[in-house]
C-alpha cells in the first residue's frame, strides 16, 4: 500500500483501523477524518477559566525546570491569549460554601428580630393591651376560685417561717436582717444599708420589710407575731396523732 500518514490525525485513524482489522477500509478514512475535525476548534475560555489561568502569570511556571516539559508549559502559557485583567475575578468557592452555611442562621436572626419588633409594636398599642388584659381577666375569672384558695396560703406560710427564723437568731426587737441590726446601733447610714440588704435578700416578702420598719413602729407589731409561729407547728403534731389511733381498733371489730 502506498498510503503514508502525514499528520497526527491520520496516524490516529490508522491506528484505530488497524486495531479493528480494517486497514483496507479506505472509504472510512474521510469519514473518520471529518469526525476527527470536530475536535479541531478550540473554544475561547470563559471569564471564570481566564480567572483560573490568571494565577499562572503571578505565580510563574511551577513545572519542573530542566526538562523540556517545563519549556512546553512556558511556551504554551506564553502562547495563550492575554486575558483582560479587569474581567477576571477569582471566585472563592469556599467562601460561597461558608455563606451558604450562614444563610439559615441569618434567616433565623432576621425572623427573630422581626418577631421581637412586631411584639414590641403590638404591646405599645393600647387596644392590644386592653384585649390582652380582658383575656387574662376572663381566664383568671374562670379559674379564680382555685387560685384564690391557693394564693393566700403560699405567702403566709413562708412569711412567718422566715421572720421567725430571723427573729430567733437575732433577739433584739428591730426585726430586720440579723447581722446588720446586731452590729450597728441606729443612724441614717445604717438605715440605707438595711434598705439595700432587705431589697436584695427578700424581695418576695413585702410584709417583712426590714429596712422600712426600722424607723416605724413595725418591729413592735412583728415581734409578738414571731413566737406564735414556731409554737404552732409543734402543737398540731401531738394533737393529730391521738385522734387517728382510736379508729384502728374499730375496723377489726366490724
Amino acid at each position, binding site marked *: 500500500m502506498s498510503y503514508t500518514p502525514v499528520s*497526527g490525525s491520520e496516524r*490516529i*485513524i490508522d491506528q*484505530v*483501523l488497524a*486495531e*479493528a*482489522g*480494517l486497514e483496507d*477500509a479506505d*472509504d*472510512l478514512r*474521510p*469519514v*473518520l477524518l*471529518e*469526525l*476527527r*475535525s*470536530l*475536535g*479541531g*476548534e*478550540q*473554544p475561547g*475560555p*470563559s471569564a*471564570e*477559566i481566564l480567572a*483560573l*489561568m*490568571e*494565577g*499562572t502569570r503571578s*505565580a*510563574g*511556571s*511551577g*513545572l*519542573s525546570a530542566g*526538562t*523540556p*516539559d517545563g519549556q*512546553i*508549559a512556558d*511556551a*504554551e*502559557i506564553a*502562547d*495563550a491569549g492575554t486575558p483582560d485583567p479587569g474581567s477576571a475575578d477569582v471566585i472563592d*468557592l469556599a467562601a460561597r460554601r461558608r455563606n451558604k452555611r450562614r444563610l439559615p442562621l441569618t434567616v433565623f436572626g432576621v425572623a427573630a428580630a422581626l418577631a421581637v419588633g412586631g411584639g414590641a409594636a403590638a404591646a405599645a398599642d393600647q387596644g392590644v393591651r386592653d384585649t390582652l388584659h380582658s383575656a387574662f381577666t376572663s381566664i383568671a375569672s374562670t379559674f379564680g376560685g382555685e387560685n384564690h384558695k391557693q394564693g393566700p396560703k403560699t405567702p403566709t406560710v413562708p412569711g412567718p417561717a422566715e421572720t421567725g427564723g430571723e427573729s430567733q437568731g437575732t433577739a433584739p426587737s428591730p426585726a430586720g436582717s440579723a447581722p446588720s441590726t446586731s452590729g450597728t446601733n441606729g443612724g441614717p447610714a445604717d438605715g440605707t444599708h438595711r434598705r439595700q440588704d432587705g431589697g436584695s435578700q427578700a424581695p418576695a416578702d413585702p410584709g417583712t420589710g426590714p429596712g422600712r420598719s426600722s424607723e416605724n413602729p413595725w418591729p413592735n407589731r412583728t415581734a409578738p407575731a414571731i413566737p406564735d409561729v414556731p409554737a404552732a407547728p409543734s402543737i398540731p403534731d401531738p394533737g393529730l396523732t391521738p385522734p387517728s389511733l382510736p379508729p384502728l381498733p374499730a375496723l377489726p371489730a366490724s
Partner: protein
Amino acid sequence: MLDSVTDEYVHTDGADPSVLFTVAYRRYSGAVLGYLRAKGVDDAEAVTQDVFLAFFPKLESLTGGLQGAKSLIFSIAHARMVDHYRRSERAPALSPYEAELDGRSSASAEDQAMSHANGLGAAALLENLSEDYREVLALRVVADLSVEQVADIMGKTPGAVKQLQRRALCALRDRASITKQGTS
C-alpha cells in the same frame, strides 16, 4: 513542534495548579468540544467550560501528569454528557415549530449540495449509530484516548472496547456506503 514531545515526561507533582490547568485547557479543550458535539450535546461550548471548571478543583489530587489530566478531563466530560441526556429526558425541550429544523422533512437539493461540499456529514452518520458505538468512536477518534482509558471511562474491559470499536467502525462503514448510494 511542541506536540512531538510526549506528555508522559511532564512532571506536575507539586506544580502550580494553574500552570497545569492552562496547559490542559490549551491541549484538550478542542477535543472535549468535539467529543461533546459528536455526542449531540446542545450547548457544547458551555458544557466544555463546565468540564474544565469542574476539573480545576481536582488538580491537587491529580497524578500522572498530562495523560492523567486528559483521562480525568474526559471522565468529567463523559459524566456531564450523561447528565445532559438525563436532564433532557426528564424535561422535554419546548420550541416553536420551524420547518428548517424539522428532522422528519427530507433535505432539499441545495442542502444536499452544501452538505457534500462540507464533507460526508460524519456527525449525521454518528446520529444513526447506537449509543455505545458513538461513545467509543468519539473517545477513540475525537478525544484520542487509548483503549485502556476508554475502557476505564466506559466501565468495560479493554477487550470489550476493542470489539465495540470494530463493530462501530463496520456500522459506520455501512451507513456511509448507504448514504453515498442514496445521494449519488
